[in-house]
Protein backbone atom coordinates (compact mmCIF):
# COMPACT_ATOMS: atom_id res chain seq x y z
CA UNK A 1 0.00 0.00 0.00
CA UNK A 2 1.20 3.49 -0.75
CA UNK A 3 1.74 5.76 2.25
CA UNK A 4 -0.99 8.25 1.22
CA UNK A 5 -3.61 5.54 1.49
CA UNK A 6 -3.54 5.66 5.30
CA UNK A 7 -5.25 9.06 5.08
CA UNK A 8 -8.20 7.63 3.17
CA UNK A 9 -10.32 6.68 6.23
CA UNK A 10 -9.82 10.14 7.72
CA UNK A 11 -10.73 11.79 4.44
CA UNK A 12 -13.85 9.62 4.23
CA UNK A 13 -14.75 10.57 7.78
CA UNK A 14 -14.24 14.26 6.96
CA UNK A 15 -16.46 13.94 3.90
CA UNK A 16 -19.28 12.22 5.83
CA UNK A 17 -18.93 14.74 8.64
CA UNK A 18 -19.30 17.61 6.19
CA UNK A 19 -22.38 15.99 4.61
CA UNK A 20 -24.13 15.40 7.95
CA UNK A 21 -23.12 18.80 9.36
CA UNK A 22 -24.47 20.64 6.33
CA UNK A 23 -27.73 18.68 6.65
CA UNK A 24 -28.02 19.62 10.31
CA UNK A 25 -27.08 23.28 9.88
CA UNK A 26 -29.26 23.88 6.82
CA UNK A 27 -32.04 21.27 6.66
CA UNK A 28 -33.62 20.85 3.26
CA UNK A 29 -36.81 22.58 2.26
CA UNK A 30 -39.81 20.42 3.19
CA UNK A 31 -42.31 22.03 0.85
CA UNK A 32 -43.35 19.96 -2.13
CA UNK A 33 -43.61 22.07 -5.26
CA UNK A 34 -46.21 21.04 -7.80
CA UNK A 35 -44.88 19.73 -11.12
CA UNK A 36 -48.03 21.01 -12.81
CA UNK A 37 -46.82 24.57 -13.42
CA UNK A 38 -47.10 25.36 -17.12
CA UNK A 39 -49.45 22.42 -17.66
CA UNK A 40 -53.19 22.59 -18.28
CA UNK A 41 -55.50 22.37 -15.30
CA UNK A 42 -56.77 18.76 -15.07
CA UNK A 43 -60.46 18.16 -15.58
CA UNK A 44 -62.70 18.39 -12.53
CA UNK A 45 -66.31 19.12 -11.70
CA UNK A 46 -67.03 19.79 -8.05
CA UNK A 47 -70.41 20.20 -6.31
CA UNK A 48 -71.52 23.41 -4.62
CA UNK A 49 -70.08 24.03 -1.14
CA UNK A 50 -72.51 26.77 -0.03
CA UNK A 51 -75.95 27.66 -1.44
CA UNK A 52 -75.09 31.30 -2.23
CA UNK A 53 -72.08 30.53 -4.45
CA UNK A 54 -72.12 28.48 -7.68
CA UNK A 55 -70.25 25.19 -8.01
CA UNK A 56 -66.80 24.97 -9.59
CA UNK A 57 -65.60 23.08 -12.67
CA UNK A 58 -62.60 23.24 -15.00
CA UNK A 59 -64.72 25.03 -17.60
CA UNK A 60 -64.87 28.07 -15.29
CA UNK A 61 -61.16 28.69 -15.85
CA UNK A 62 -61.15 29.02 -19.63
CA UNK A 63 -62.97 32.35 -19.86
CA UNK A 64 -59.90 34.30 -21.01
CA UNK A 65 -59.21 36.09 -17.74
CA UNK A 66 -56.56 34.92 -15.25
CA UNK A 67 -57.99 33.81 -11.91
CA UNK A 68 -56.89 32.52 -8.55
CA UNK A 69 -57.81 29.01 -7.48
CA UNK A 70 -57.63 28.90 -3.69
CA UNK A 71 -57.66 25.61 -1.81
CA UNK A 72 -58.97 26.20 1.72
CA UNK A 73 -60.91 24.63 4.59
CA UNK A 74 -62.88 25.86 7.56
CA UNK A 75 -60.74 23.67 9.85
CA UNK A 76 -57.49 25.17 8.58
CA UNK A 77 -55.98 27.72 10.93
CA UNK A 78 -53.68 29.57 8.45
CA UNK A 79 -56.75 30.03 6.23
CA UNK A 80 -58.14 32.39 8.88
CA UNK A 81 -55.01 34.52 8.61
CA UNK A 82 -55.29 34.45 4.84
CA UNK A 83 -58.96 35.52 4.71
CA UNK A 84 -58.42 39.32 5.01
CA UNK A 85 -55.64 39.16 2.39
CA UNK A 86 -57.92 37.33 -0.04
CA UNK A 87 -60.59 39.97 0.65
CA UNK A 88 -58.01 42.63 -0.23
CA UNK A 89 -57.23 40.82 -3.51
CA UNK A 90 -60.95 40.52 -4.28
CA UNK A 91 -61.35 44.29 -3.72
CA UNK A 92 -58.48 44.83 -6.17
CA UNK A 93 -60.67 43.12 -8.80
CA UNK A 94 -59.13 39.63 -8.69
CA UNK A 95 -61.53 36.78 -9.26
CA UNK A 96 -60.95 34.09 -6.66
CA UNK A 97 -62.52 30.66 -6.93
CA UNK A 98 -62.29 28.42 -3.91
CA UNK A 99 -62.34 24.72 -3.14
CA UNK A 100 -63.32 23.69 0.39
CA UNK A 101 -61.35 20.55 1.26
CA UNK A 102 -62.98 17.89 3.45
CA UNK A 103 -65.57 20.30 4.76
CA UNK A 104 -69.26 20.42 5.70
CA UNK A 105 -71.58 23.09 4.31
CA UNK A 106 -72.55 24.57 7.74
CA UNK A 107 -68.86 24.76 8.71
CA UNK A 108 -67.96 26.56 5.48
CA UNK A 109 -70.89 28.95 5.94
CA UNK A 110 -69.79 29.74 9.47
CA UNK A 111 -66.20 30.25 8.33
CA UNK A 112 -67.26 32.64 5.54
CA UNK A 113 -69.63 34.53 7.84
CA UNK A 114 -66.88 35.03 10.38
CA UNK A 115 -63.90 35.72 8.13
CA UNK A 116 -65.46 37.12 4.95
CA UNK A 117 -66.28 35.62 1.57
CA UNK A 118 -63.93 36.71 -1.23
CA UNK A 119 -64.94 33.81 -3.50
CA UNK A 120 -66.89 33.99 -6.75
CA UNK A 121 -67.46 30.25 -6.82
CA UNK A 122 -66.85 27.57 -4.24
CA UNK A 123 -66.55 23.88 -4.99
CA UNK A 124 -66.52 21.18 -2.41
CA UNK A 125 -64.09 18.26 -2.37
CA UNK A 126 -64.62 15.61 0.31
CA UNK A 127 -61.76 13.33 -0.75
CA UNK A 128 -59.01 15.90 -1.61
CA UNK A 129 -59.10 14.72 -5.25
CA UNK A 130 -58.43 18.22 -6.61
CA UNK A 131 -55.27 18.43 -4.51
CA UNK A 132 -53.84 15.33 -6.19
CA UNK A 133 -54.88 16.78 -9.55
CA UNK A 134 -53.08 20.04 -8.85
CA UNK A 135 -50.01 18.57 -7.14
CA UNK A 136 -50.99 20.36 -3.95
CA UNK A 137 -49.89 18.91 -0.64
CA UNK A 138 -51.84 20.89 1.94
CA UNK A 139 -54.15 23.77 2.74
CA UNK A 140 -54.07 26.65 2.07
CA UNK A 141 -52.57 26.76 -1.39
CA UNK A 142 -53.32 29.19 -4.20
CA UNK A 143 -52.84 28.65 -7.92
CA UNK A 144 -52.76 31.26 -10.66
CA UNK A 145 -54.65 29.93 -13.69
CA UNK A 146 -54.41 31.89 -16.93
CA UNK A 147 -57.37 32.52 -19.23
CA UNK A 148 -56.72 29.33 -21.21
CA UNK A 149 -56.78 27.06 -18.17
CA UNK A 150 -52.99 26.70 -17.81
CA UNK A 151 -51.53 26.67 -14.27
CA UNK A 152 -48.88 29.40 -14.15
CA UNK A 153 -48.01 29.72 -10.47
CA UNK A 154 -48.38 27.85 -7.19
CA UNK A 155 -48.33 29.60 -3.82
CA UNK A 156 -47.80 27.18 -0.91
CA UNK A 157 -49.19 28.31 2.44
CA UNK A 158 -51.22 31.39 3.21
CA UNK A 159 -50.78 34.58 1.18
CA UNK A 160 -49.48 37.25 3.54
CA UNK A 161 -50.32 40.94 3.21
CA UNK A 162 -46.83 41.78 1.93
CA UNK A 163 -47.18 39.18 -0.84
CA UNK A 164 -50.22 40.84 -2.44
CA UNK A 165 -48.17 42.86 -5.00
CA UNK A 166 -46.31 39.67 -5.97
CA UNK A 167 -49.60 37.80 -6.53
CA UNK A 168 -50.96 40.72 -8.59
CA UNK A 169 -47.74 40.63 -10.63
CA UNK A 170 -48.16 36.87 -11.23
CA UNK A 171 -51.74 37.50 -12.40
CA UNK A 172 -50.52 40.22 -14.77
CA UNK A 173 -47.85 37.87 -16.15
CA UNK A 174 -50.54 35.26 -16.75
CA UNK A 175 -52.48 37.58 -19.03
Amino acid sequence: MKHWAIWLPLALFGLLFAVFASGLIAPGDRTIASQMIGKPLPDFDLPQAVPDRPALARADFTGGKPKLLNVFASWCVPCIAEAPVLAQLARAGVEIDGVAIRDRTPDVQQFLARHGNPYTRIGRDDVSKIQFDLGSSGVPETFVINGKGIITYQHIGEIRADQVPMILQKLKEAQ
Partner: protein
Amino acid sequence: MARPDCAQPPFIPSPSTPPVGVAQDKLQPLAEVEGRDRNPLRIRPSTSRQSREVYPERLPWQPAEGLGNSVRWLAFLLLAMFAVPAAAQDSLPPAPYAYRQLEDPAKEKAAQDLMLTLRCLTCQSQSIADSDAAMAGDMRHQVRERIAKGEDPEAIRAWLIERYGDWVSYEPRVTTITWPLFAAPIVLLLLAGVIVRKRFTRAKAQGDKI
Protein backbone atom coordinates in the same frame (compact mmCIF):
# COMPACT_ATOMS: atom_id res chain seq x y z
CA MET B 1 -49.66 22.94 76.84
CA ALA B 2 -47.28 25.50 75.36
CA ARG B 3 -46.49 24.85 71.75
CA PRO B 4 -43.64 26.87 70.27
CA ASP B 5 -44.93 26.77 66.67
CA CYS B 6 -48.40 27.81 67.58
CA ALA B 7 -49.07 31.52 67.83
CA GLN B 8 -52.57 31.28 69.22
CA PRO B 9 -53.35 28.15 71.18
CA PRO B 10 -56.87 27.01 70.41
CA PHE B 11 -59.49 27.30 73.08
CA ILE B 12 -59.73 24.13 75.06
CA PRO B 13 -62.91 23.89 77.03
CA SER B 14 -62.58 22.86 80.60
CA PRO B 15 -65.00 20.11 81.67
CA SER B 16 -66.08 22.27 84.58
CA THR B 17 -67.21 25.18 82.38
CA PRO B 18 -69.22 23.84 79.46
CA PRO B 19 -69.69 26.38 76.64
CA VAL B 20 -73.15 27.69 76.08
CA GLY B 21 -75.19 25.72 73.56
CA VAL B 22 -73.02 22.61 73.66
CA ALA B 23 -74.66 19.57 75.05
CA GLN B 24 -72.87 17.89 77.92
CA ASP B 25 -72.47 14.56 76.13
CA LYS B 26 -70.77 16.20 73.09
CA LEU B 27 -67.92 17.45 75.21
CA GLN B 28 -64.68 15.55 74.92
CA PRO B 29 -62.36 14.82 77.79
CA LEU B 30 -59.28 17.10 77.98
CA ALA B 31 -56.85 14.29 77.27
CA GLU B 32 -58.55 13.44 74.00
CA VAL B 33 -58.60 17.07 72.87
CA GLU B 34 -54.95 17.47 73.75
CA GLY B 35 -54.11 14.28 71.91
CA ARG B 36 -55.84 15.50 68.82
CA ASP B 37 -54.06 18.81 69.03
CA ARG B 38 -50.73 17.07 69.06
CA ASN B 39 -51.60 15.45 65.74
CA PRO B 40 -48.86 16.74 63.41
CA LEU B 41 -51.41 17.37 60.71
CA ARG B 42 -53.35 19.72 62.88
CA ILE B 43 -50.70 21.72 64.69
CA ARG B 44 -50.00 24.09 61.78
CA PRO B 45 -52.39 26.84 62.54
CA SER B 46 -52.18 30.36 61.24
CA THR B 47 -48.62 30.55 59.89
CA SER B 48 -49.45 29.05 56.51
CA ARG B 49 -52.42 31.34 56.12
CA GLN B 50 -50.36 34.37 56.99
CA SER B 51 -47.65 33.48 54.51
CA ARG B 52 -50.27 32.92 51.85
CA GLU B 53 -51.52 36.40 52.37
CA VAL B 54 -48.04 37.91 52.05
CA TYR B 55 -46.92 35.71 49.14
CA PRO B 56 -49.92 34.70 47.04
CA GLU B 57 -49.94 31.11 45.82
CA ARG B 58 -48.07 30.70 42.59
CA LEU B 59 -49.82 29.57 39.44
CA PRO B 60 -48.65 26.17 38.15
CA TRP B 61 -46.86 27.63 35.14
CA GLN B 62 -44.85 30.11 37.18
CA PRO B 63 -41.39 28.75 37.89
CA ALA B 64 -40.46 28.98 41.54
CA GLU B 65 -37.78 27.84 43.93
CA GLY B 66 -38.11 24.56 45.77
CA LEU B 67 -38.34 20.98 44.60
CA GLY B 68 -42.16 20.80 44.73
CA ASN B 69 -42.54 23.78 42.46
CA SER B 70 -39.95 22.63 39.96
CA VAL B 71 -41.72 19.26 39.72
CA ARG B 72 -44.99 21.06 39.06
CA TRP B 73 -43.26 23.20 36.43
CA LEU B 74 -41.85 20.09 34.79
CA ALA B 75 -45.29 18.44 34.81
CA PHE B 76 -46.73 21.52 33.14
CA LEU B 77 -44.03 21.45 30.46
CA LEU B 78 -44.70 17.75 29.86
CA LEU B 79 -48.39 18.51 29.45
CA ALA B 80 -47.61 21.39 27.09
CA MET B 81 -45.70 18.92 24.92
CA PHE B 82 -48.96 17.22 23.99
CA ALA B 83 -50.83 20.46 23.29
CA VAL B 84 -52.42 20.48 19.84
CA PRO B 85 -53.89 23.47 18.00
CA ALA B 86 -57.63 23.53 18.45
CA ALA B 87 -59.78 22.64 15.45
CA ALA B 88 -56.89 21.81 13.11
CA GLN B 89 -58.63 18.61 12.06
CA ASP B 90 -61.48 18.24 9.65
CA SER B 91 -64.70 16.70 10.92
CA LEU B 92 -65.52 14.65 7.82
CA PRO B 93 -65.32 10.85 8.00
CA PRO B 94 -62.40 9.30 6.07
CA ALA B 95 -62.79 8.70 2.34
CA PRO B 96 -64.65 5.42 1.55
CA TYR B 97 -61.55 3.42 0.63
CA ALA B 98 -59.15 5.08 3.08
CA TYR B 99 -59.54 2.29 5.64
CA ARG B 100 -61.55 -0.29 3.67
CA GLN B 101 -59.94 -3.02 1.64
CA LEU B 102 -60.97 -3.87 -1.88
CA GLU B 103 -63.31 -6.85 -2.23
CA ASP B 104 -60.99 -8.62 -4.69
CA PRO B 105 -57.96 -9.94 -2.72
CA ALA B 106 -55.68 -9.83 -5.77
CA LYS B 107 -56.52 -6.17 -6.41
CA GLU B 108 -56.15 -5.32 -2.72
CA LYS B 109 -52.70 -6.96 -2.77
CA ALA B 110 -51.70 -4.84 -5.78
CA ALA B 111 -53.04 -1.71 -4.07
CA GLN B 112 -51.24 -2.54 -0.81
CA ASP B 113 -47.92 -3.13 -2.61
CA LEU B 114 -48.25 0.21 -4.34
CA MET B 115 -49.33 2.10 -1.21
CA LEU B 116 -46.26 0.85 0.66
CA THR B 117 -44.05 2.58 -1.92
CA LEU B 118 -45.91 5.90 -2.08
CA ARG B 119 -44.84 8.69 0.21
CA CYS B 120 -47.26 10.51 2.49
CA LEU B 121 -47.43 14.24 1.73
CA THR B 122 -48.15 15.15 5.35
CA CYS B 123 -45.91 12.77 7.33
CA GLN B 124 -43.01 12.93 4.95
CA SER B 125 -41.08 9.90 6.17
CA GLN B 126 -44.00 7.49 6.10
CA SER B 127 -45.66 5.62 3.29
CA ILE B 128 -49.35 6.24 2.74
CA ALA B 129 -49.99 2.68 3.93
CA ASP B 130 -48.50 3.59 7.32
CA SER B 131 -49.81 7.12 7.80
CA ASP B 132 -53.03 8.14 9.50
CA ALA B 133 -52.96 11.67 8.05
CA ALA B 134 -56.22 12.66 6.34
CA MET B 135 -54.37 13.26 3.07
CA ALA B 136 -52.77 9.81 3.18
CA GLY B 137 -56.26 8.35 3.65
CA ASP B 138 -57.50 10.30 0.63
CA MET B 139 -54.52 9.09 -1.37
CA ARG B 140 -55.24 5.46 -0.42
CA HIS B 141 -58.81 6.05 -1.58
CA GLN B 142 -57.49 7.26 -4.95
CA VAL B 143 -55.14 4.28 -5.28
CA ARG B 144 -57.78 1.67 -4.38
CA GLU B 145 -60.42 3.28 -6.58
CA ARG B 146 -58.11 3.40 -9.59
CA ILE B 147 -56.94 -0.19 -9.07
CA ALA B 148 -60.56 -1.32 -8.71
CA LYS B 149 -61.21 0.28 -12.10
CA GLY B 150 -58.43 -1.87 -13.52
CA GLU B 151 -55.67 0.72 -13.74
CA ASP B 152 -52.07 -0.52 -13.67
CA PRO B 153 -50.23 0.25 -10.40
CA GLU B 154 -47.27 1.71 -12.29
CA ALA B 155 -49.64 4.02 -14.18
CA ILE B 156 -50.95 5.32 -10.86
CA ARG B 157 -47.39 5.87 -9.68
CA ALA B 158 -46.65 7.74 -12.90
CA TRP B 159 -49.80 9.84 -12.39
CA LEU B 160 -48.57 10.91 -8.95
CA ILE B 161 -44.95 11.47 -10.08
CA GLU B 162 -46.31 13.71 -12.84
CA ARG B 163 -47.83 15.92 -10.10
CA TYR B 164 -45.38 15.73 -7.21
CA GLY B 165 -42.15 14.64 -8.86
CA ASP B 166 -40.00 11.60 -7.98
CA TRP B 167 -40.32 12.71 -4.37
CA VAL B 168 -43.68 10.98 -3.96
CA SER B 169 -42.37 7.51 -4.83
CA TYR B 170 -40.16 5.33 -2.64
CA GLU B 171 -39.12 3.30 -5.68
CA PRO B 172 -36.09 5.12 -7.12
CA ARG B 173 -35.84 5.49 -10.90
CA VAL B 174 -32.61 5.80 -12.88
CA THR B 175 -32.26 9.50 -13.65
CA THR B 176 -29.38 11.94 -14.09
CA ILE B 177 -29.38 12.45 -10.31
CA THR B 178 -29.93 8.88 -9.11
CA TRP B 179 -27.55 6.95 -11.41
CA PRO B 180 -24.70 6.82 -8.79
CA LEU B 181 -27.10 4.86 -6.58
CA PHE B 182 -27.21 2.12 -9.19
CA ALA B 183 -23.61 2.48 -10.37
CA ALA B 184 -22.01 2.43 -6.90
CA PRO B 185 -22.40 -1.34 -6.21
CA ILE B 186 -20.92 -2.23 -9.60
CA VAL B 187 -17.99 0.18 -9.13
CA LEU B 188 -17.33 -1.16 -5.62
CA LEU B 189 -17.42 -4.77 -6.83
CA LEU B 190 -14.95 -3.97 -9.62
CA LEU B 191 -12.70 -2.13 -7.14
CA ALA B 192 -12.77 -5.07 -4.75
CA GLY B 193 -11.91 -7.42 -7.62
CA VAL B 194 -8.89 -5.31 -8.56
CA ILE B 195 -7.62 -5.15 -4.95
CA VAL B 196 -8.05 -8.89 -4.39
CA ARG B 197 -6.27 -9.66 -7.66
CA LYS B 198 -3.33 -7.43 -6.66
CA ARG B 199 -3.04 -9.10 -3.26
CA PHE B 200 -3.06 -12.59 -4.75
CA THR B 201 -0.41 -11.76 -7.35
CA ARG B 202 1.78 -10.18 -4.65
CA ALA B 203 1.40 -13.20 -2.38
CA LYS B 204 2.27 -15.46 -5.29
CA ALA B 205 5.39 -13.40 -6.06
CA GLN B 206 6.48 -13.58 -2.40
CA GLY B 207 5.75 -17.30 -2.30
CA ASP B 208 7.95 -17.78 -5.37
CA LYS B 209 10.79 -15.94 -3.62
CA ILE B 210 10.62 -18.25 -0.60
